[in-house]
């Protein structure tokens, strides 16, 4: 009766209400775990550095990922380039807990994403809207996250993506059944998944926030907008006091609805990451445009 896809969606459920942190070495991984992260994303450079350095961003060195797997007991995720199924095969071979097919790395295929149904390991993918989310789920993703705009420290895109999804879900729920095929065509989303959303009013998988979250308030904002949990990339280890900020963001995700607690834990966190406003980015600098 084993159903790998169900088990993979189940793991995503266990991550809910938690914070997944980008880490680039064992020390950072341990800090993240001690701060209460529910998982870590192992990568060589955080998005802010990838953005700064330019060039081609690829899957991380498996040796570095293995060191992080040894250093912590929580799930370890890692990124592959969009469409790069061999990078995904390599991560599966080292028993990664979750593969992020990510727009933060340079895409390897301009037309196709990875056929995720071919893998035993679970995948998380970014999405800007419901069509994109359902296409990724149709390809076998076990978890969705907003794309936001990684490496900026500007939460505006994550908000936009989450609000877009919520409003589209409401629209689909309110539609007549005879309208579903047409909206499926318009959104470029699988018909059966549109039917699922129509019936249940939600995505069939867990949906996290990602891309630009830098403060406890940002994290709580995304939770109040309906996300199941939060990814924090550059926001922690590019800040003045990573340990304290990491812990504050973890607490903020648990008590996202209690302003007095949020006020307390937002105090004296030191400097937040030095961000870039998304508005100032030219279109070709936006990572969230990657993905088809």
């Amino acid at each position: 009766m084993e159903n790998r896809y169900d088990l993979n969606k189940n793991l995503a459920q266990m991550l809910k209400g938690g914070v997944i942190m980008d880490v680039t070495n064992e020390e950072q991984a341990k800090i993240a775990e001690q701060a209460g992260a529910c998982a870590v994303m192992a990568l060589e450079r955080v998005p802010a550095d990838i953005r700064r350095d330019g060039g081609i961003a690829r899957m991380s060195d498996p040796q570095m990922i293995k060191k992080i797997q040894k250093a912590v007991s929580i799930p370890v995720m890692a990124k592959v380039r969009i469409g790069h199924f061999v990078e995904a095969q390599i991560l599966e071979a080292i028993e990664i807990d979750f593969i992020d097919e990510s727009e933060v790395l340079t895409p390897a295929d301009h037309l196709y994403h990875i056929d995720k149904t071919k893998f035993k390991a679970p995948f998380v993918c970014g999405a800007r809207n419901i069509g994109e989310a359902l296409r990724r789920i149709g390809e076998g993703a076990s978890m969705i996250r907003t794309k936001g705009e990684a490496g900026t420290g500007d939460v505006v895109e994550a908000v936009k993506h989450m609000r877009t999804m919520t409003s589209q879900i409401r629209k689909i729920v309110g539609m007549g059944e005879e309208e579903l095929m047409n909206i499926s065509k318009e959104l470029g989303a699988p018909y059966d998944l549109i039917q699922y959303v129509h019936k249940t009013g939600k995505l069939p998988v867990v949906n996290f926030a990602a891309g630009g979250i830098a403060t406890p308030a940002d994290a709580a904002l995304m939770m109040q907008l309906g996300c199941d949990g939060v990814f924090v990339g550059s926001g922690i280890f590019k800040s003045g006091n990573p340990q304290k900020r990491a812990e504050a963001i973890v607490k903020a995700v648990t008590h996202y609805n209690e302003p007095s607690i949020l006020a307390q834990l937002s105090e004296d966190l030191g400097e937040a990451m030095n961000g870039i406003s998304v508005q100032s980015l030219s279109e070709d600098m936006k990572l969230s445009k990657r993905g088809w």
Partner: protein
Amino acid sequence: MIVGILALQGAFIEHVNILKNLNINSILVKNKEDLENINALIIPGGESTSIGKLLDVFHMKSSLEKKISQGLPVWGTCAGMILLAKKISNDERIHMPLIDITVVRNGYGRQLGSFCIYEKIKGINKPFPMVFIRAPYIEQVGKNVEVLAIVNGKIVAAKQNNILVTSFHPELTDDLRMHQYFLTMIQ
């Protein structure tokens, strides 16, 4: 009767939904005060290090330990089992050492080792769908612990007085029997 679900991190809504199907009221437990209004508590699956940390920083651990020692019925699924175990053989972090068991964390390895199986549980008729997600198992039990289920030679469910623990996640299935079993432990 009100069942509290510890809601610091993890899959707590799934338990709420199952209890709803059983017409049982539940509340999400997020702070010390919430512990005063409940007749039983479920500690859900999630990451034990994460939930343990939050129990600490929100100063809930000692009140919770006291309540359970005084007889509050409690059920830990997966991470919940780790949080209640007296000993963890591959981790020095002990959270609330209340049930006399030794647990192996991530006992089946990483996510690729996650699995589902139908097996028997003592006190429940007919096999039960057991979903194991990066699950722990019980390596050893004290003499006051009743073993409720063994899968492939490993103990995956046990009970000591008011404390129930399972390695697997009944809240991820639509089978209500394990929750019904827990409800019988509540006076």
